[in-house]
């Protein structure tokens, strides 16, 4: 099978596969944060909250403006940053996004509660378009790196070697390195001895030393390249690690809130059966507001991290594609199912980077929709969702 398609495998570099998978997880963590908002709102209201992507977009703008106020604006003078700055941005983003989510629910979705689901969906599309295009009138465009990189005190990359090169290669480098150092030193000594000598027009003995140095250095470089081509390592940016860790912490917090608090239990009851929950004395309006607070604040956190650590350009269309992809992730995991959204988000991120890795980067946006259609046709309930067919 594989032999039949050598041209498909020819361009694949399996040594960068682990790194690509890690990158997929970092991208997927953000999708998972957004997907949680979709899935919780769908679980409670049975509504695809199209405006969720726009809450995410506004979160990025909040992060941008907070960073301006911290002195990282176009005319900013701040040069160093600290964890406190990042934390402040994160918290303000989450709070403001929660507020926006609640306002959208109060003014657009609550009046539609008893209308048909199609009407509610069209309202959601309307809100989404409104925020996109009205924002376009009032909000600036911030080209990448959208938020000043100096905000992030942890820049740089960590190299983790998974499979080191065979010892023979290192030995060879070890043998060649002293020779190269020696040649370098000889040449440097010659140059200090003959100050003012033209580097490109040396007398024969100088030229001989220069050639020897170049050959030795080239040999070491070749040996290093040979060793690198046999080793597998992963480059991880610290910013990406922060994304992953923060996402995990937020998801654990969410799990605690939903599974182990009274309000979380009420939320699960409402998503299970709206009317019965109301009859049992649960204030459904409060629970729906609570759901929007949770979902929107997670989107805000995702937006802040995406804008700060990835430096994506901030426009009012910032949330459209991530929003749609996160929705697909929620469907993939089983909409209404919280662990499903996380799983779906991570899978979606990995699938996307895999497509890029395979050399079809221009198609990476289409993958989400192909997955969506595949899931809906083969397993409409999603990976972790129930198979229960919707009854009329």
């Amino acid at each position, binding site marked *: 099978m594989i032999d039949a398609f050598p041209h498909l495998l020819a361009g694949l570099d399996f040594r960068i596969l682990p790194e690509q998978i890690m990158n997929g997880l970092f991208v997927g963590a953000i999708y998972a944060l957004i997907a949680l908002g979709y899935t919780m709102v769908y679980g409670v209201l049975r509504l695809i909250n199209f405006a969720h992507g726009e809450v995410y977009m506004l979160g990025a703008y909040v992060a941008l403006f907070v960073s301006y106020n911290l002195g990282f604006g176009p005319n900013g003078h701040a040069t160093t940053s600290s964890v406190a700055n990042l934390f402040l941005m994160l918290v303000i983003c989450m709070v403001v996004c929660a507020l926006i989510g609640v306002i959208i629910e109060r003014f*657009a979705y609550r009046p539609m509660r008893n209308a048909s689901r199609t009407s509610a969906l069209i309202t959601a599309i309307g809100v989404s*378009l409104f925020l996109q295009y009205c924002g376009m009138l009032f909000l600036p465009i911030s080209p990448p790196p959208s938020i000043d990189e100096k905000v992030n005190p942890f820049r740089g990359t960590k190299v983790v070697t998974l499979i080191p090169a065979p010892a023979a290669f290192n030995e060879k480098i070890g043998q060649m390195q002293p020779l190269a150092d020696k040649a370098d030193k000889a040449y440097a000594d010659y140059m200090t001895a003959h100050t003012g000598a033209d580097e490109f027009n040396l007398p024969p003995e100088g030229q001989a030393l220069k050639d020897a140095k170049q050959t030795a250095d080239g040999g070491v470089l070749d040996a290093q390249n040979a060793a690198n081509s046999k080793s597998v390592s992963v480059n991880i940016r610290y910013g990406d690690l922060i994304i992953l860790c923060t996402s995990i912490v937020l998801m654990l917090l969410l799990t605690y809130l939903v599974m182990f608090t009274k309000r979380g239990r009420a939320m699960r009851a409402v998503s299970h059966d709206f009317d019965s929950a109301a009859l049992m004395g649960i204030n459904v309006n409060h629970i729906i507001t609570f759901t929007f607070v949770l979902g929107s604040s997670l989107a805000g956190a995702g937006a802040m991290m995406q804008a700060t650590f990835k430096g994506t350009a901030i426009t009012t269309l910032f949330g459209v594609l991530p929003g749609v992809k996160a929705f697909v992730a929620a469907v993939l995991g089983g909409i209404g199912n919280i662990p499903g959204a996380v799983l779906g988000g991570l899978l979606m991120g990995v699938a996307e980077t895999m497509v890029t890795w395979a050399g079809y980067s*221009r198609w990476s946006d289409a993958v989400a929709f192909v997955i969506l259609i595949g899931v809906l046709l083969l397993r409409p309930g999603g990976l972790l969702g129930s198979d229960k067919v919707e009854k009329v």
Partner: protein
Amino acid sequence: MNDYQQRLVILAALYVTLAVSLNLINGITGQFSIGHAAFYQIGAYSAGYISHRWITELGHSPPRILWLFGMLLAGAAFAAVAGLIVGLPSLRLKGDYLAIVTLGFGEIIRIAVQNTDALGGAYALQQIPKIYPIWLFWILAITCIAVTRNLIKTARGLTFLAVREDEIASQAMGVNVTKVKVTAFVLGSAFAGAAGALLAHYEGDITPGMFAMDTSFIILTMVVLGGTGSITGSIFAALFLFYLPEYLRGMKTADGSALAVSGATVVASLLMVLIAVVCLKKILDSHWGDPRRRGAAYAAVVVASLVLVRVLVPIVGLFKPLSVMQVPTDQLRMVIFAVSLIVIMLLRPQGIFAHHEFSWTWLKRVFHRGDGPRTEIAS
């Protein structure tokens, strides 16, 4: 007629075709497709590519009008096949799931075209011969209206309405639900494809950006605003929503430059709409008084909000950046679409015309106050 007026007349016909054909799927059959631009795009690109590739090789031998007619059929055929492909999964999905699949299908088509170099990739499919007799555009629109209108008058068409009202009940009554849904998709997308074919031969160059998600949403707004299920509504809404931005764009100040309003005016108007909608919704839900008094209350709210906006503009203008900012009126296009979508959904979810259609007997009834058949279809 100058070029600009010609353009308005031509594009209006295309939008009417698109709105009515989407109404066939969304309003009359009760499916929920929000990716109509995909079929429009398939029609435009298939017809455009055939023309671009072969018309010169044929050396203009066929009469151009016949060629265009053939391309129209080709665009319709390609889009119909696509409609069949999307229609088939619609058997398993309903409501919002179907909506998101159609949206995804639209995006897949757009990305596929963007990555196909033979179709001009992300730039444009260029040098399509320009053939655009205006009457053909309107013949297409009228054909689309006539087919849809006559369809729901036939026994076969009533099955479409039955599927909309209750799928399970209509199945029990012997309606082939599968066939009805697929027919609706194929028919609706064929008309959209034909419109696309004409667009390609009118514009000469087509880009994937012309068929992005917001085009789908504009068509959807037209259907929803007019009333899902009402052909009359779709036509009026398509014309209204198409001409409104053009009217705004055409507005000039005294010195001939494009008209711009201040940011304060925009914000004040949005606040006014918000307040007016909340008040109207309260009256609507309260079942207060008799119809005449309620009508008076609606009128009072509208008048009060028009006064309110006058008061609000200077107040909002106290916030300096807003009063300094100038917004060209043509940028308000999508904002107006979005606001009208939300307002219509909040106040009249069934759309302006609801399920009503224009009819002569209705006109007679209005003027003579006599008895006549109601215009509502199968409610």
